[in-house]
Structures are given as structure tokens and as C-alpha cells.
């Protein structure tokens, strides 16, 4: 019994030390990279790229399910993007509300013909519409099949070499496409690029564009601002520099159509279809011995509405972790396989053991440490020192993420926002971290039980945006 307790405590300690170390390393790499990157960005002239006509055409794949409240504003915003050659393909995934009607009235849709360009499995297409006002806007009406199925339908009708995977409620900044396309110009072997996702709660939105960036008032949304800083500016950038990008957010990513079609499109039997696609791309291209690149780019921005209630946040986090677990289990063959390079030897093991199994270790750790304390297996000062250590480490990483934002993009310009973010960094370990671990644990269990539900998120809408 005592042996087991000691073993568990040792594993928990090892976990905290390892995960802290990985975070510190990726944050350190991001700190070194971001400053150089921001400097380099000042040389890039997006307008010049556009005027040269040197950028490849892009199709925006916009899956929509019961989005009647926001779809018209979302599409209007997409129509104003500064990019010379793009199409918008809204895939109405069996909505039971007035999504199609809203689109039809707002954009004067007419029935149209469009031949598929690839054979990918997806639910039946019922009708195809095209806008009379905006010839680049198409709507595919299909039987419901969930997001991955909708993406496959869109991909089957995509005619451009690149496609942008996004959510219907994602607000892309006007220059987001001309920024995210750059890795594809600089390296012809780039097959995927992810942009940064930021939280729109609290910001002012006009005509589908964020016009004033402010921190949300809602505490949960504020915690998420900090989390997104850490995840994107420190985590994803660090992993990208190490050639270990395993996730491109489904809210905003650009892919080479051919590469995705060749591997059969999005997997429909997981709720983590965005991560699964990236992992499968890595796996297939490495197996084929093909040179390729999948990167994270920190300057193209997509804004999204974050969950602002415990229930919706819990549902989202549970689903994210369920998706992560499904992907990790499916591709476990990559684990510790030298043929996959840094992915197989470092990135995958990190996501498998530290991210996927993290919530179990963390929750068990709280319990076993308490038992060990009662049984006198660890001393009170040590226990306090350990928790203080974990707290300070978390705060240090959050501060580093805030500093990264300050030295690069500086979207939150008010001093009060900076203070509030620092306060969040101090508060996060007390309750928010633990509840997150619980939600993620539920995701792990859900994956084990084979749950596939998505859940719904009530939307508050964007501040300043008129109703549809």
C-alpha cells in the first residue's frame, strides 16, 4: 500500500517537473523567436503581395449548423477580406433553423451547378446555391453529418490549391489570409499553417471586424484569454520552431487541398478532427518520405467567442480532451518511433503522456498527496513548498506569455488590461486549474466510452454587432 502511494507521488512529482520543463523550453524558444519574427514582419508588405497577384487562390470552407443568428454577419465579414482571389463555400450541415433562408435573402442565392473535384465520403448534398451579388459565394446544403463530414463535402467541391478551414462564428481579420499564406510562398513544401485564435468576448465588433480590443468582463472568459496566450504564443510557436506542430486549430488553418484529399480528407469518427488531420498528414508524409512542413504563424488572427458559463466551458474542454485522446490512441503507432523524428520521439510522447494523461495524474496527485500527508509519508513543509512551486511555475509561464504578447502584437493596449491579466495569472491555480483538470478527466473517460457528442454552446454574440 505504502509502496503504491509512494509510487503515485513519485509519478505526480515527475509529471509536474516534466510538464513544467517542457513549458519552460517551448516558452523560452517562443521568447527567442517571436522578437525576431516581429522584426521580420516589418519588412513584409502584404499590399505588395496582393498587387503582384503572386498569391494562390483560396477557398474558405465554412461549416454551419444552426447558425441563423450569426451566419449573415459572418459571411459579410468574409466578403470584405483583403485577398485578391478567394471563394467562400458555406456548408450548411443539415441545419434545422433558418440558416439557408437567411443566406438566401441576404445574398440573393440562386440554384447552381458545381461539379465535385474529389471523391471524399460525406453525407448527401441536397442543393447547391450561388450568390447573384457575390459570384464567389457558394452554399452547399447537405444532410447533417457533423463538422468533419461538412468539411469533407466542402473539400470535395473545392477548386483552389489551398483551402482555409474555419468555424462559422470565426471572425478573420481583413489581412488574415494574406498573412497566413506566406509560409506557402516561402516554402513550396508547406502543407498546413495555423494562425492565432484570440478571444473576442469583451471586444467591440463592427461589420464582422474587431474594432476595439478589450478584456472580457466575464472571469471565465478572462482566464481563457490567458490560456490562449500560453497555448498559441508560447506553446504552438515553440513546437512549430521544433517542427513538432501537432495541432492546427479548426477555427483557423490553411491547408494544401491536394495533400488533404490524398489522405482521404477529415476523419469523421473523432471529435478532434482538426488535430487528427494534422497528425495523419505528418504520419502519411513521413511514411512516404516526402519533404513537407506544417507550421504555426503567430500574426494572422482569427477572433472567436469563448464559452462564458461553467457549463459551456466544461462541455468544450471535455470535448477537446476527448478529441485529443481519440487522436492519441488512434495514432499511438507514432509513439517513440524514430522514423517520425522529433514528432515521434518528443512531441507525440509529450501530448500522449503529459497532455492526454495529465488530468488523471493531476487529480490522483491531489488525492494521493493528501493521503500521504495524513499518513506522514511527506512532510507538511515539503507539501506546501511543492504546491507553492507548482503555483509559481504556472504564474511564471503565464507572465512569460503576457510578456510575449507585449513584445510582439500588443493587442490589449490598456494598462488596466495588463494588470487584470497579471491578476488572472495569480488566480488561475486556485480553482480554475482544478476544475479544468476535472473536465479534461471527463473527456478522457468519454473517449474510453466511445462518446461522440459535440454539445452546444450558447452564444452571447459580439459586442457592437447588430442583430441579424
Amino acid at each position: 500500500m505504502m509502496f503504491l502511494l509512494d509510487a503515485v507521488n513519485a509519478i505526480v512529482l515527475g509529471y509536474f517537473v516534466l510538464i513544467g520543463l517542457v513549458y519552460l523550453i517551448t516558452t523560452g524558444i517562443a521568447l527567442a523567436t517571436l522578437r525576431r519574427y516581429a522584426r521580420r514582419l516589418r519588412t513584409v508588405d502584404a499590399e505588395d503581395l496582393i498587387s503582384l497577384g503572386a498569391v494562390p487562390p483560396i477557398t474558405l470552407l465554412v461549416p454551419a449548423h444552426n447558425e441563423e443568428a450569426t451566419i449573415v454577419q459572418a459571411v459579410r465579414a468574409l466578403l470584405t477580406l483583403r485577398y485578391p482571389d478567394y471563394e467562400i463555400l458555406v456548408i450548411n450541415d443539415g441545419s434545422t433553423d433558418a440558416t439557408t433562408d437567411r443566406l438566401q435573402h441576404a445574398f440573393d442565392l440562386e440554384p447552381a451547378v458545381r461539379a465535385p473535384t474529389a471523391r471524399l465520403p460525406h453525407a448527401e448534398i441536397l442543393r447547391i446555391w450561388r450568390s447573384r451579388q457575390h459570384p464567389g459565394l457558394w452554399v452547399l446544403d447537405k444532410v447533417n453529418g457533423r463538422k468533419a463530414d461538412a468539411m469533407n463535402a466542402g473539400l470535395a467541391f473545392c477548386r483552389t490549391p489551398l483551402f482555409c478551414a474555419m468555424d462559422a462564428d470565426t471572425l478573420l481579420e481583413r489581412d488574415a489570409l494574406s498573412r497566413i499564406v506566406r509560409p506557402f510562398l516561402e516554402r513550396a513544401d508547406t502543407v498546413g499553417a495555423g494562425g492565432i485564435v484570440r478571444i473576442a468576448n469583451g471586444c467591440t465588433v463592427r461589420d464582422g471586424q474587431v474594432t476595439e480590443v478589450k478584456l472580457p468582463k466575464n472571469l471565465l472568459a478572462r482566464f481563457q484569454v490567458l490560456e490562449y496566450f500560453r497555448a498559441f504564443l508560447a506553446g504552438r510557436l515553440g513546437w512549430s520552431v521544433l517542427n513538432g506542430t501537432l495541432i492546427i486549430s479548426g477555427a483557423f488553418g490553411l491547408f494544401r487541398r491536394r495533400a488533404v484529399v490524398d489522405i482521404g480528407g477529415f476523419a469523421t469518427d473523432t471529435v478532434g478532427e482538426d488535430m487528427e488531420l494534422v497528425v495523419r498528414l505528418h504520419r502519411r508524409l513521413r511514411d512516404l518520405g516526402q519533404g513537407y512542413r506544417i507550421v504555426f504563424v503567430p500574426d494572422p488572427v482569427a477572433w472567436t467567442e469563448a464559452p462564458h458559463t461553467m457549463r459551456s466551458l466544461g462541455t468544450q474542454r471535455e470535448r477537446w480532451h476527448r478529441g485529443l485522446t481519440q487522436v492519441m490512441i488512434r495514432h499511438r503507432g507514432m509513439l517513440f518511433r524514430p522514423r517520425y523524428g522529433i514528432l515521434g520521439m518528443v512531441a507525440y510522447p509529450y501530448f500522449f503522456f503529459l497532455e492526454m494523461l495529465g488530468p488523471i495524474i493531476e487529480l490522483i496527485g491531489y488525492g494521493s498527496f493528501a493521503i500521504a500527508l495524513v499518513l506522514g509519508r511527506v512532510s507538511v513543509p515539503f507539501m506546501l513548498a511543492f504546491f507553492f512551486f507548482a503555483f509559481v511555475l504556472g504564474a511564471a509561464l503565464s507572465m512569460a506569455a503576457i510578456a510575449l504578447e507585449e513584445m510582439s502584437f500588443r493587442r490589449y493596449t490598456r494598462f488596466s488590461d495588463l494588470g487584470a491579466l497579471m491578476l488572472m495569472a495569480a488566480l488561475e491555480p486556485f480553482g480554475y486549474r482544478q476544475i479544468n483538470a476535472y473536465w479534461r478527466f471527463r473527456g478522457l473517460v468519454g473517449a474510453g466510452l466511445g462518446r461522440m457528442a459535440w454539445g452546444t454552446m450558447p452564444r452571447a454574440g459580439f459586442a457592437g454587432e447588430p442583430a441579424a
Partner: protein
Amino acid sequence: MSAPGSIAAWLSRLDAPAALLAGLAFLLALTLALAALAGILRARNALVARRWTAVERRWHDLLLHVIAGERPEAELHAMVRPGEARYLLEVVSRFARRLRGPERTRCAAVVMPYLPLLVAQASHRDPGLRARAVHALGLIGMERHADLVLDALDDPSDFVGMTAMRALARPAHAAHAPRLVARLDRFEAWDGGFLASVLAAIGPTVSPPLCGVLADDRRGTRVRWVAAEALCKLHHLPAGEIAASVAETSSNRDLVAACLRLLEATGHSGHLPVIRALVASADEVIRQQAVRALGTLEDPARMPGLVAHLADPSPWVGMEAGRALARFEGGRLLSPVAAGRGATATIAAQALMEARA
């Protein structure tokens, strides 16, 4: 004792461990330092932004007059205080990006006394800073420092090299076109379409050296492919003969496809035998481009032959055939196919719809 037990025992002994306290102190100091860094950065950035906004406001009206040729540059130089020269270079570069002709020349004249700053920066160890210097020199310092920009084509950093390439790829610097074309190989990793657009931005002067690259089978296939794409954008008619010859002899899919695109833009009926032969290629990309070229160049009497390609296993080939037939005699050959059912009918209907739009 078991290994985990030993660890626990070792940890338990750390009641007042100097190591743990030192670790904690370090982390705490790091956290505070990072918080201070964020705060200092914020304050500094706000200060810098305020300062430069004020400086720019001070210069703005006079700078516009100088660029318009209404006031002498010396008046503006008198307003530039010590430490502000680098910012003036940045502001004027920003203007120069959007100006052409005499206004651009006047921008260059305004910053002439401050160019040594850019020259020094062009040899900085940070590639980002070097690229910025090369970019700015390309805009406002070419008159005196063209050699420096040309040398940057060989910079160890690809990004600096490409910045130089873009700076030089303008009609005003067309004299350097042969040198750019000669250095194409170093940018092989870049997107071919992008490179072709950059080269085409030079204008017709670049066409002869590009023809040389396309015809030279000792050059890399990718570089020849880029040359073909650029010539296609330039609609350089003499390139048609070279394209036909390369399409006939090359076995590289991308190069053959690019030559077919070039033939579509610059070819004539004499090239039809080459194109017709490639319509039967096993490669769908080559078939697609061959059908597309036929759609433009084919003898009207043989256009009905394209109907068979609507049913090609590749929808891309079918769509090109459909587009070609939709342009031919108002889609007369296509309408009966579109009235039918199945994939071919969809392709035909789509082509007719596109032609109407």
C-alpha cells in the same frame, strides 16, 4: 527500499531544503522579472508610440510638400533632430512604397543624407534587420546603393535574398534582370507561382533571359518551370517555340504542364500536334493543361473531339473540356450533354453556367 519509496523518503527529508528554497526563489524571481518585463515593455511601447506619433505629426505637412516638390528637402532636414533619422527613413519608406515616378525620386532625395544608417544596418547580424535595410534601400536608396541590394541576393538568409529579389524586380531596375534570373536557383524552395509573379513584375525586359533558362536543359526543372510560368504571365510570344519543344521532350510533369500553359498563352496552330499528343498523357495534370490549350488553339473543325474529354476520369480534365466547349459557338455542342444525367452532364451544365456568368 523501492525506487519510488526512496524518492519519497528523499523528498520527505527536505524539510528545510536549501535546494528547494533556492528553486522557489529562482522561480519567484523569474515570475516577478517577467511581470516587470511585461510592465516595462508596455510603458516603453506606449512612450515610443507617443513620441513617434508626435514626431510624425511635426513632419507630416512639410514632408508632403517636399514629396510634391513644393518645398526643398533642406527644410525637412532642419527639422530632424538627433536620433530621429532612423524614424524618418521608416516614414519615407512607407510613403515610397505607394509612390511612383518623380514623387518616389523625391522620397529618395529626402533621405539621401541618412542612407549610411541603412548601409550599416544591411550588414547587421540579425537577418530581420538586414532584410529591412535591403527593403528600404530598394525603395529609396537604389540610386546610390544598387550594388548593395544586388549583393544581398547572395545573403546567407533566404529571406534577405528574396527581399533583395523583390526590391530589384521592378521595371525601373530592369537592367538587373539577367542577374536576377541567374540567381533563380537559390530560391528553388519558394513557391513557383510566387517567383514567377515576382519575375513578371520586371516587365518584358526579363523575357529573353527567361527564354534562355527555359531552353537550357542543364538548369534545374523547377527553375525552368518558374521561367515558363513567368513567360506565360508576360505573354511573351517568341517563347511558344521553346515551350513546344520542351513539352515534347521533357518528362517532368510540372514543367510540361507549365509549357502547355505557356503554349495556351503564346502558341499557334503549328503547335497543335505537340498538344494533341499530350492530351493522351497518363498524367491528369498534363491532360488537363493539354485540353485547356486545345480549347484555345484547336481547329474549329476538330472541336467536337473535345466532347469525349468531358467524361475523363479526372474532373479537372472534364472541366477544362467543358469550359472550352462552352466558349465554342455559344456552347452548341455542350447543351445536349448538359441536358442529360450524371457527372458529365453536371460538368457540362457547370461550364455553361460559368460561361453565362
